[in-house]
């Protein structure tokens, strides 16, 4: 068996979008590599602006959509397209999702506990009602709720934050190896956010769960993650140990992100440049950040930036650390 539990190699997802600009192709995820090791539970944060491909990447990892190019391996085995029903069920027990919009993860016509009990019975495999009740109640208590407050109510009777905590609770019921959490805290208040990210730490340390934490909250990403990957327009532009990447950023986009955080105790001064229509940037031939980058030079617009490894730890896709030298065409990008 491979030492990698889940691995993606040179994965891309191309979408064709019609509309005002005619048919365009965009690489929502562009040639991304990522491996999650077995027995080495960690929190890996994926940070990037909206539309950078985080959700698309998460959905591919969860086998909800298939990549256009590249491969996804489970336990070192290529999954080759669709998993069959039994394989998918086994995979679901090991990898649980938490989605971005809680209002979309629950149907407005079902009470939310339906989902919790379904997960307890079908995915965890609880045999009796008592066992299912116990699993559901425990999961709810872990996120600061209780069965008494949740059972029998419909999604529109909860606030956004409450609903998201229920999604976290649901994902935890089967005790998975991997939780892919797509912006799980974006609708939750600051103190409850800490409860959720501390919960992730606890799951990692006590239950050996690897957490893929997709977020744009850099403060909690810094706080909770071991590794971090910064995405921009479908590519991972910088990745490595989170303390290194966030304390000494190397990619100009990472710098911009860090400058934009609404910090307490230090006010913003200059103005920021907002992105143009995203679809335009997807079409850029060279570095997709070139239009907004203060350090851009001609070569950045012409060629794909090289992957540079810094201090043997972090990787950055940028011409700047190599003095804008065009690398030899060999070597992947």
């Amino acid at each position, binding site marked *: 068996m491979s030492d990698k539990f889940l691995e993606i190699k040179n994965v891309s997802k191309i979408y064709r*979008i019609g*509309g*005002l600009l005619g048919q365009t192709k965009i690489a929502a995820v562009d040639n991304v590599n990522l491996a999650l090791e077995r027995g080495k539970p960690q929190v890996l944060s994926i940070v*990037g*602006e*909206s*539309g*950078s491909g985080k959700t698309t990447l998460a959905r591919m990892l969860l086998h909800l959509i298939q990549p256009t190019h590249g491969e996804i391996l489970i336990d070192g085995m290529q999954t080759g397209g669709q998993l069959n029903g039994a394989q998918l069920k086994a995979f679901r027990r090991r990898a649980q999702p938490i989605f971005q*919009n809680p*209002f979309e993860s629950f149907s407005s016509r079902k009470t939310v506990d339906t989902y919790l009990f379904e997960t307890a019975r079908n995915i965890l495999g609880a045999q009796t009602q008592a066992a299912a009740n116990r699993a559901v109640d425990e999961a709810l208590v872990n*996120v*600061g*709720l209780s069965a008494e*407050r949740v059972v*029998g109510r419909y999604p529109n*009777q909860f*606030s*956004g*934050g*409450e609903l998201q905590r229920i999604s976290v609770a649901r994902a935890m019921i089967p005790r998975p190896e991997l939780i892919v959490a797509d*912006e799980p805290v*974006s*609708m*939750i*208040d*600051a*103190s*409850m*956010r*800490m*409860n*959720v*990210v*501390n*919960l992730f730490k*606890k799951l990692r340390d006590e239950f050996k769960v690897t957490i893929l934490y997709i977020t*744009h909250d*850099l*403060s909690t990403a*810094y*706080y909770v993650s071991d590794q971090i990957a910064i995405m921009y327009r479908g590519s991972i532009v910088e990745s490595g140990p989170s303390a290194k990447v*966030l*304390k000494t950023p190397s990619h100009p986009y990472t710098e*911009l*992100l*860090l400058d*934009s*955080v*609404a*910090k*307490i105790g230090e*006010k*913003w001064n200059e103005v*920021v*440049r*907002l*992105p*143009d*229509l*995203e679809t335009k940037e997807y079409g850029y031939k060279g570095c997709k950040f070139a239009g907004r980058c203060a350090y851009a030079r001609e070569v950045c617009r012409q060629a794909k930036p090289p992957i540079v490894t810094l201090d043997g730890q972090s990787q950055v896709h940028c011409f700047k650390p190599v003095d804008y030298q065009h690398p030899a065409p060999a070597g992947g990008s």
Partner: protein
Amino acid sequence: MIRVRNVCLHYQTVQGTVKAVENVSFDIFDGEILGIAGESGCGKSTLMKGIYGNVEAPLALTQGSIEMEIEQVGERQVIPSTQFHRYWWEHISYIPQASMSVLNPVVRIQDQFFDSYLRADVRALGKQQLQGRIAEYLRELELPVEVLHSYPHQLSGGMRQRVIVALATFVHPRFVLADEPTTALDVVVQRGILTMLVNLQRQLQNTFILVSHDMGVHYQITDRMVIMYAGQVVEIAPTAILFERPRHPYTQLLINSLPRLGDDTQRFGIGGRPPSLLAPPPGCRFAARCHLADDQCRQVQPPLVEVAPGHFSACLKHEWVTEIPLVGERETT
């Protein structure tokens, strides 16, 4: 200004009455940026619905009043919230939470502008001129004019939100309410949108009410803050003072729970959970989670009192808050 007096906003549900907002009073001054924060489910969005005068079953204003004072043709007029709908868009506009739903998915952005502005003098401009004005306004806000011909789904979340801000401020309303306008967005776009809102506010000298979970955002842009807990207002203060010396234990714990970039200390969310709004406890609603609570707190409802000029706290022990350090570690789950 807007006067909120003894307001109760209740939802009727099969389980009983959810007292989402209970006996809330405060003023919103002209020309200020007022921030509202509080745990998820504490009633912020419900209060915003009340202030916008958009109270529909199962929600009802069961007690108190909300009034807007505006100047019209040189005369000051006091308008009750039941009449606010006549002033929507032109005097008061609202950017709701999950505001994707504001935009009609099958209507191009330009037509959404046309549909929203039915006011006679705006209509009288004629379509062509109005189109020109809208385009000009978008350019002012540094939005690409192409968006006018797009459908909402063709725009990224950040671009959609910028369009909604443009739509909500097009005829310069006196009051702009925004409920989590940037939560779904990354920090760079968030900063851009907030800067855009602040610049507009400075230019128009109008009043801006912002609900956000991001305390950093409040620190950056608000003048004054209202902190809510379990349906009630527990603290009101000028923003800088609130961060420097909170006078309510909930606010203190909230500020203390915030992780900071580059700071590795373990942080904790506030342990426990808020009381059910179906049957809130008799005394202070925060008592079960408060490190200063005693028997008196559990029996007496603390009134909101002015503890320093412009600084209000609903805590019986407001003098001791921040004097007594937070002891030990708080519960993590």
